[in-house]
């Protein structure tokens, strides 16, 4: 029984990371119908900045903070410089651009920081089952989720952002600067992605270190329903815990396959994900 509880707890810690990454994808998807494939690269650069700052100052928390700021800035820049020019084109254009950003930034990271793995620390002590580092991962992601919920639900900015996402033209009619809201959304999403990146990277940082975590992040987002932030968070934790069981009871080599099976099972029962709202789409 102890083993089962331990598996659940460590699954929750991984799940928190998937939840953060899923959330970072969904914030953008909801507003623009674009799956931001650049997100792992934005998170990666953020993690490298954390690595550099921590190396220079000796403070993990300065590195952590600078990663979040880097994430925010990179998200804003990506939207303003690369995505905005194709705003009125099909979402496919933007998606292809995000793929380009992914490849460019991963290559750039290798050129700046080398492709060799660097050791990258945990926030807190990582030893033992549900270590302080695990608790920090779960706690920080839940805190971010609550803050985001509060922002979207109870602030004028959040109301503007939701209006811009749901009905951009109507939002403009009531004076909302829709473009600005998209930029803010990209910044916030990328900040959440950077948090996921810093949590997912340890113990080693290399240009492709976040790829697997992001595949699980996308899986979590789809399982939860791409239209629902709660779904993303739930999907993240569900996937983390499930994969933890699979890894221990069936063998770690089956984890990737299990993620696929979960995805297929959920989609065959609920094609739009567990928490999607039924809705009519314009065709």
């Amino acid at each position: 029984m102890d083993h089962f509880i331990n598996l659940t707890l460590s699954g929750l810690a991984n799940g928190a990371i998937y939840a953060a990454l899923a959330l970072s994808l969904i914030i953008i998807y909801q507003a623009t119908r674009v799956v931001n494939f650049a997100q792992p690269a934005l998170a990666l650069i953020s993690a490298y900045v954390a690595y550099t700052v921590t190396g220079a100052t000796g403070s993990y928390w300065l590195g952590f903070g600078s990663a979040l700021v880097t994430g925010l800035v990179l998200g804003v820049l990506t939207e303003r410089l690369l995505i905005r020019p194709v705003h009125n084109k099909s979402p496919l254009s933007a998606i292809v651009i995000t793929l380009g950003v992914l490849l460019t930034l991963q290559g750039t990271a290798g050129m700046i920081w080398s492709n060799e793995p660097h050791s990258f620390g945990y926030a807190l002590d990582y030893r033992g089952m549900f270590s302080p580092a695990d608790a920090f991962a779960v706690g920080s992601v839940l805190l971010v989720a609550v803050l985001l919920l509060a922002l979207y639900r109870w602030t004028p900015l959040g109301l503007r952002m939701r209006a811009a996402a749901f009905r951009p033209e109507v939002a403009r009619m009531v004076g909302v600067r829709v473009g600005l809201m998209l930029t803010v959304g990209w910044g916030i999403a990328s900040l959440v992605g950077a948090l996921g990146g810093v949590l997912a990277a340890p113990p080693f940082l290399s240009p492709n270190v976040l790829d697997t975590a992001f595949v699980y992040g996308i899986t979590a987002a789809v399982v939860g329903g791409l239209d629902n932030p709660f779904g993303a968070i739930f999907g993240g934790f569900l996937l983390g815990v499930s994969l933890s069981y699979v890894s221990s009871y069936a063998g770690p080599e089956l984890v990737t396959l299990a993620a696929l099976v979960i995805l297929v099972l959920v989609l065959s029962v609920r094609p739009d994900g567990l928490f999607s709202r039924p809705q009519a789409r314009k065709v």
Partner: protein
Amino acid sequence: MSKPLLRVEDLVTSYGAVRAVDSVTVDVAEGEIHAILGANGAGKTTLLRTISGLLSADSGRVWLDGKDLTRTPAEQHVHHGLAHVPEGGGVIVELTVEENLRLGGLWKRDRAERSAALTEMFDLFPPLWERRSRPASTLSGGERQMLAIGRALMARPRVLLLDEPSLGLAPLVTQRIMRLLRDLRERTGLTVVLVEQNAQSALSVADRGLVLWLGRVVARDTSEQLLADDQMRHAYLGF
């Protein structure tokens, strides 16, 4: 007529080679309800969308109280006192009734003013108060139209552009909306540009109107005159 509050001057808007609005001039006096009539595809909605900046004009000008709004971005129009209720209302069904209303006043910095406007809207539309925390998707068609108008009024506009408020509504509900427009005008001096296919109900409240046909103005007169012109009614208004 005194100096118009809203002046549309020789406006042209095209979709590719098609001139949807073709040299249209409209003068709307302060406190007037002005009907824009015409069949489907006459260019009514295009005209309204160009006035509110959602479409850019090929040529011509839009003036509001002497200010040239022709090249002003759509999201700025509300700052100049122009509010637009689109066809179907444009209620955001994913938001609650209250959130929809709040949205209309958000551009104002003064919080006290925003909440005063909200209270006023709930007084004006008691059914919206009862349903304030429900998603707007649960409202009936008539209630949605009220909500859409309420949201536009939250901005305390000087000119309200209203696109087909009667669309899909029962005649009784349409009547109620038309009465509301007249009351608002009497109480607050609101100026209304009312686009309607349902010419009869629009002319029942409007002071004056014009008839569009393939993007051009084919008639403009007082409501009484338009209603009295049998030839015009049969040819363009279908009753």
